[in-house]
């Protein structure tokens, strides 16, 4: 029985496949293919559009405060129990939080507080540089949350309106 030798065929095949591999690396090396490295401290990384970071309270530019009505739904929902809200009850027609704090050191970014919020005033922020020097700074108060939230976007306002009325 004659066994067909693949010696020379293997030889040629190996050269072809090595040439293919070398071509792939050559195109990576010579043609200006952008590097995937992020030079983070010098250049900010480009966050994806749907990045969901720390919960924040965006401020409505017209009224000068967030849409929070101090209902406490987020307090009850939070699995870690780290949200504290005290309601300012001076005007019963206009409930607003006197104190709103999130202990961000224990927050796990689950987003349940934002889902349950009836006025959609809790929004995921885009800030990710949250390092600080002591534990107390990680307890974010109302001012910090509003500052991180920035201004309320217009389309978000439209969603929030029917629930207000």
């Amino acid at each position: 029985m004659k066994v067909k030798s693949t010696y020379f065929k293997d030889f040629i095949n190996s050269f072809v496949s090595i040439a293919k591999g070398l071509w792939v690396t050559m195109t990576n090396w010579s043609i200006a293919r952008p590097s995937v490295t992020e030079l983070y401290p010098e250049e900010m990384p480009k966050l994806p559009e749907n990045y969901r970071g720390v919960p924040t309270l965006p401020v409505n530019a017209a009224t000068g405060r967030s849409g929070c009505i101090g209902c406490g739904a987020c307090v009850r929902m939070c699995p870690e129990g780290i949200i504290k809200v005290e309601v300012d009850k001076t005007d019963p027609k206009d409930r607003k939080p006197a104190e709103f704090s999130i202990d961000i050191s224990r927050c796990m970014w689950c987003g349940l507080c934002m889902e349950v919020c009836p006025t959609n005033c809790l929004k995921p922020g885009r800030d990710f540089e949250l390092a600080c020097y002591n534990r107390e700074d990680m307890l974010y108060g109302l001012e910090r949350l509003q500052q991180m939230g920035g201004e309320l976007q217009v389309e978000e306002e439209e969603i929030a309106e029917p629930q207000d009325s």
Partner: protein
Amino acid sequence: MPNPYLEFAKQLGLIVAIAVAVLLFVMVAVLYIILKLRWVIARIQSRLGPNRTGPWGVAQTVADALKLFQKEDIIPCGADRWLFTLAPAMVFIPAYLVYVVIPFGDGMTAKSLNIGAIYISAISSIGVIGIIVAGWASNNKWSLLGAFRGASQLIAYEVPIILALSVPILVTGTLDLDKIVQAQAGGFWHWNLFNIHHWPMLPIAFLVMLIAGLAEINVTPFDIMEAESELVAGFNTEYSGMKFALFFLAEFAAGFTLAAIIVTLFLGGYQPPLHVLGGQVTAKLFGVVPLFSLISLGWFIAKCWVVVLGIMWIRSTLPRVRMDQLMNLSWKALIPAGLVNLLLTGAYVAFWMPK
């Protein structure tokens, strides 16, 4: 009558000066080759590579070397102290000794031996003794395995190297590297690699030489000797500090040596690709004589650099071969090819070559 002591002192001074100059050249070349290798591999993998130390990261290897200087020099308690200390030098010195016969430029050979090619193949195979000693003296199974693999790899690949080396030697008819380079003068079509109108088997010898040389210097497709994923770091597992730095230096110095040998034997050494670009014409134009050898040195370094970049390209592309594949490649492909090539070349030189 000249004072014999003075003459001796002069000779000694000259030898030391040349040795120090070559050593400095090798050191600087290795420092830059390591940096360039990291850049090239990074670019091939779509990364940036070192860019923190100094402008664009150029001081990275210097910083690494300084770090290795500071490190504690550990000798494991079960190790053979003398051999353990001696091994890095035994690996580095052969890689450095090969430069004795390499013609860097026109008239820039440290010592032109008439058996230069034999000297090269003899000296470059001594390095593996240092590797075996390192693996044995470390008293570590990984090291010993790496050293054994290195020994079998060297035995397998020394043969095709010598077979490939013999082809340009037969065609040029001399073992003296200086004369081999001089025989390739007059444009790139006279270089041994491109000299196919003279003898078409020369490129095959080049290919065998390149593959076997890659195995000889243990770069990635053939680095089973220090295979990181199999043997922790191979023969240098137990080494730290300056001894490790010496191994590292020897590895890259051997890489540059391979490039220099390939350039000398196949790519025309210091000869310019066209006669016009050579030093002789320029020296006539500007009337500066020392410029002539400097330009030839420049051509030599430029060609070596191209070969070194090619080796970096190959080592960043190909995956590591298995032990049996490595042996198969040598005994079943390279050695038959080299033998047939040598036979045909010998017959050609004996019967048909125009005198």
